[in-house]
């Protein structure tokens, strides 16, 4: 039953926003990876999930904010059951590690999808990345981090609107990167952000 709902959700998203994928820097592969993407709209998470082939999607868990996706039973159902999302606190209690559930999934060999801008961004610019992705990269130095650029999503469902315009979205997957030995936090975050921006205009073909 849940599996059927998942399939229908993916089908629905593919019809509404297209959710095409373009693999530019790597190929779809069910190995453990950290996917990271720019964040413009509530549709982002479902768009990336719908763009992933089934074999990859079933092992990939999007990281979602508890303060939005946990607000009611419906959203919670879509997030946790429909998308296999892991909900985290954006404003954690002091001395707690909000990324603990994400690290646990990676330890189990699963892939995760994160949005390092932290919040949906309403301008055309990609906001500076928050540090969570750096901590994951240091904790799992042998895992590939795959940049994803999503286009058009802001035009499909902009912040503050409930109306979906059925423009086609493409998810471009770039060349994987890892944290380099001795790389500072700021330098790594800038490099990761640049990798997403580079994909915006089509990006380099590997």
């Amino acid at each position, binding site marked *: 039953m849940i599996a059927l709902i998942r399939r229908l959700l993916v089908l629905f998203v593919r019809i509404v926003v*297209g959710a*095409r994928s373009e693999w530019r820097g790597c190929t779809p592969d069910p190995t453990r990876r950290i996917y990271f993407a720019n964040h413009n709209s509530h549709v982002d998470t479902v768009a990336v999930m719908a763009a992933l082939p089934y074999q990859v999607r079933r092992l990939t868990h999007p990281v979602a904010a508890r303060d939005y996706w946990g607000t009611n039973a419906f959203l919670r159902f879509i997030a946790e059951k429909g998308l296999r999302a892991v909900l985290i606190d954006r404003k954690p209690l002091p001395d707690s590690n909000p990324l603990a559930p994400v690290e646990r999934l990676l330890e189990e060999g699963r892939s995760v999808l994160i949005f390092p801008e932290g919040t949906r961004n309403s301008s055309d610019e990609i906001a500076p990345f928050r540090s969570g992705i750096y901590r994951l990269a240091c904790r799992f130095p042998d895992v590939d981090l795959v940049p994803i650029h999503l286009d058009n999503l*802001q035009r499909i469902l902009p912040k503050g609107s409930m109306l979906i*315009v*059925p*423009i*086609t979205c493409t998810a471009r997957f770039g060349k994987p990167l890892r944290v380099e030995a001795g790389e500072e936090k700021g330098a790594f975050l800038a490099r990761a952000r640049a990798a997403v921006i580079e994909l915006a205009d089509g990006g380099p073909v590997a």
Partner: protein
Amino acid sequence: MTSFFSIVLAAILGLLAVASAIGFVLQRRATEPGSVATVHNLNARIRSWWIMVGVFGGAILLGDTATVILFAFLSFMALREFWTLTPSRRGDHLALFLSFFVVLPLHYVLLGTAWYGLFSIFIPVYAFLILPAVATLTGDVNEFLARSARVQWGLMLTVYSISHAPALLMLQTGTPSALLLVYLVVVVQLSDVFQYVWGKLLGKHRFSPNISPSKTLEGLFGGGASAILLGTLLYRLTPFSPLQAAAVSTVIVVAGFFGGFVLSAIKRDLNAKDWGYVIEGHGGVLDRLDSITFSAPLFFHIVRYWFTT
């Protein structure tokens, strides 16, 4: 449907079968990387033609309602391709939503119910006034005139113009009006195919490298003349005499050229090679229907003015 229609249908299927056979032989023969790519693209196009003929032919056989629904869906896909490439701002969001989910369906309902008076003015008068009015509500004046023009052109090309092909079903001409639609589509599409074939075989002189790099003078004239000849031979699908059919198919072919050029010019302006990706070998729906956007309204008006009873 007349028995002549069955002959046309059999001829189209026969043509496709021959094309598939040629494609199969060429695939065996092609060895150089360049010709392998061309043959691969040719075979993708032929496969897509089978599907397009199946879908269009199926809708025609199912009747008028199915045909109108098919074209409404094609307009939807074309409008979507238009807006995927065309830039829009936050202030256009409501106008775009209304284009897709209010204007497009209402226009096709007017078509389906044969309310010609409102059908002909709903988009070019009312949608043209209302959508910019809605856009003012957001207070975004940035590039307002250009943005309004894009919203209007999107609807004009992908909904209003294309809908004039199924609008032929409203007309009483003494011949089954579905055959007029078949006539239009066959002449326009074969004109494109003939241009492609003539261009590949004899094409030397580029016609307009800026707009359409693959179009050649040889392709345009050879393809156009072949399509006009075919349009003349098919006069029995229509209320036209052979001479009238020659004149009407000339109008269809010339308008089709310009439809292709205008849509290509917009595409280049937007830095895109194809409008979309849904039809293998052809690009998007709009890449296949570009000639129809200009030829359908002209053909519709010619038939309505001179040939309705």
